[in-house]
């Protein structure tokens, strides 16, 4: 509890680090901040070319189908893989300055989250332009879905960042794991393609209900299934608590291990 209070006291550090990350990222480039929008648009263009011209997937507006799933996934996977090295990357701070170390993964995940939000502006625009009829209920659910995903990603980043300090191989293992996880989630194919007998196992993946919920709102144009969303919230919170506990335990020896 006292840790939470301390993290709150250092809230400005979180915003400063996030701002530094976002502002520093495109500083010096011609398009600057616009890259946050240009980048997802260009990605979309590539996907559209591949899946409408070369690999016809047989799903209506497949580029949008993919895009709606991919943007939240990229955030999640960045939290897992990039998150794993965020403590190591800030070792000078960790070794020299006392602050609640939770700040580092929190600000890393938050800055990825802000990136995702900016990309979502493009996603929503493309979705509307493509003729998806967004429902009020769906739009209202969107922030909730995002928060749940954020909480999950944070929990994951706490664990991956703390463990990687002790076991550097995790960085590479997690990169592979992230790839496998992506294919175990309904991102570039629909859930209906999964064989019946694996479906129960498949649904254990906490990312699945999140992706499905995004897709319900922005691709199918309906309100997502609230019970699965609620279950996802529960899982997200559990991941966060476990993540924080593990982190609190492991962070005690960070300064020595780095």
């Amino acid at each position, binding site marked *: 509890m006292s840790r939470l209070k301390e993290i709150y*006291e*250092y*809230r*400005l*550090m979180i*915003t*400063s*680090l996030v*701002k*530094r990350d976002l*502002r*520093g990222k495109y*500083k*010096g480039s011609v398009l600057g901040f616009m890259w946050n929008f240009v980048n997802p648009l260009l990605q979309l263009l590539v996907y559209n070319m591949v899946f409408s011209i070369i690999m016809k997937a047989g799903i209506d507006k497949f580029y949008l189908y993919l895009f709606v799933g991919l943007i939240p996934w990229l955030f999640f996977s960045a939290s897992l893989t990039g998150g794993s090295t965020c403590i190591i990357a800030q070792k*000078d*701070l*960790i*070794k*020299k*300055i*006392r*602050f609640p170390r939770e700040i580092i993964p929190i600000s890393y995940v938050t800055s990825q989250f802000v990136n995702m939000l900016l990309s979502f502006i493009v996603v929503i625009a493309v979705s509307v332009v493509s003729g998806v009829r967004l429902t009020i209920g769906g739009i209202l659910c969107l922030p909730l879905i995002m928060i749940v995903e954020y909480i999950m990603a944070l929990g994951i980043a706490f664990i991956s960042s703390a463990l990687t300090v*002790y*076991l*550097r*191989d995790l960085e590479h*293992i997690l990169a592979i794991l992230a790839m496998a996880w992506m294919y175990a989630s309904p991102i570039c194919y629909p859930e209906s393609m999964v064989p019946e007998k694996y479906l129960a196992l498949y649904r254990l993946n906490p990312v699945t209900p999140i992706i499905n919920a995004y897709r319900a709102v922005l691709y199918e144009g309906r309100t997502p299934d609230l019970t699965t969303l609620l279950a996802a919230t529960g899982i997200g919170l559990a991941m966060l608590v476990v993540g924080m506990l593990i982190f609190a335990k492991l962070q*005690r*020896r960070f*300064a*020595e*291990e780095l």
Partner: protein
Amino acid sequence: MEDNVAIKVSNLTKKFKVYFDKGHSLKELLLFRGRSRHEVRTVLNDVSFDIKKGEAVGLIGHNGCGKSTLLKLISGILYPDSGSVEIEGRVSSLLELGAGFHPDLSGRENIYINASIFGLTKEEIEARLQSIIDFSELAEFIDNPVRTYSSGMYMRLAFSVAINVDAEVLLIDEILAVGDANFQAKCFARLQEIKEQGTTIVIVSHSLSQIENICDRSIWINEGRIEADGTPLEVHSVYLDYMNEQRQKNGGKALDMPPEYIAYLQERRYKENLKLSMIPEQQAAVEANGGQYRWGSGEVKITSITASGPDGVGKRMFEVGSDVYFKVHYHVEKPIKDAVFGIGFFRNSGENLYGTNTRIDGHKNFDIDEDGEFTIIMRRIPLMPDQYTVSFSIEYGDGVPVDYWKDALKIDTYRQTPDVGGFFMEHDWEYDAYEKDGREDGSGS
């Protein structure tokens, strides 16, 4: 915890695993399980002490003695294996300057980032922003990207943030050697100010003179234990004796000197260029010891010093503006090469007023093989009426003292006219106004 205690360290023990070949990879963890070669080194062994509120304490010791580890344990960067550290009040640890600086962002933006890492809120930073900018002397450069700064500007900005974080407990590690001499002096002054405001300060430094200037107390850590704890001058003379002993064991070559010892001596020379004041307790310690502190390797010893006018008759009172002759006799125990003579003037408060030596003045270093004397003539001394102490030194060219005799001599100055201040400044007046005796236009002096 008792009321007036700011930091309570109880039975603190810290062990490090020292790996011969540190392995963080999976292969190493799996294959060499139980074989991973390391030894456990006890860096701090059952250390306990209290630091009172408002006290300024220096932690000293040779490299690897555990002083930095102790500071990191106090600051909460490291966690102890056993024992505890209790701290009362907000802690600011200045172990790293410019933490979180982003080169592409402006100085102003970086102030926010850096200060937030010290745990300040937005309002707190805004309240301090102007004093941080003023202190850094960056003026209009503050809105330029930090990458365009010179290293001096960068450090000034970083230090300004650090020094303006008002904490109840301030932990400092080797960061006072920033910027040019002027900025250093300013940092010291600011640190004194912070201390006077009642902030508890703990400093780890190789520079004993910095600690002498700021701290009321010094703790010498040796092999993970407290070796000595007392006023800086007491502790430092014991410490220096010990270091000297170690040096003799190593064959007595100056090059084998522990680097911090040399650093200290270099600092001492710095100090002689800076106006720094000694705190009353140190002064009291000096006076308790007959006003004398003296150390050095002892091959050559100063035997007597006389102060006189041009006539050579020893005296203690000198008129402001007169010439003072200091004649120093020395006795040679063992011939030395490459020596330098030095002198330093101090106010009674310990503030250094002037210091120089033969090398600074462009003389070649001396080889001393028999007893002799040297004289230094201070022309037209500008010191206004007061008592002053004078220190003398014979040291090696690399700064290692052979005989450093602090406050060896006291002199007093007097003056007929009632002008005031610390120094007599040579001057002239020019004016357009009429003087009382009715001259039309005049100039006088």
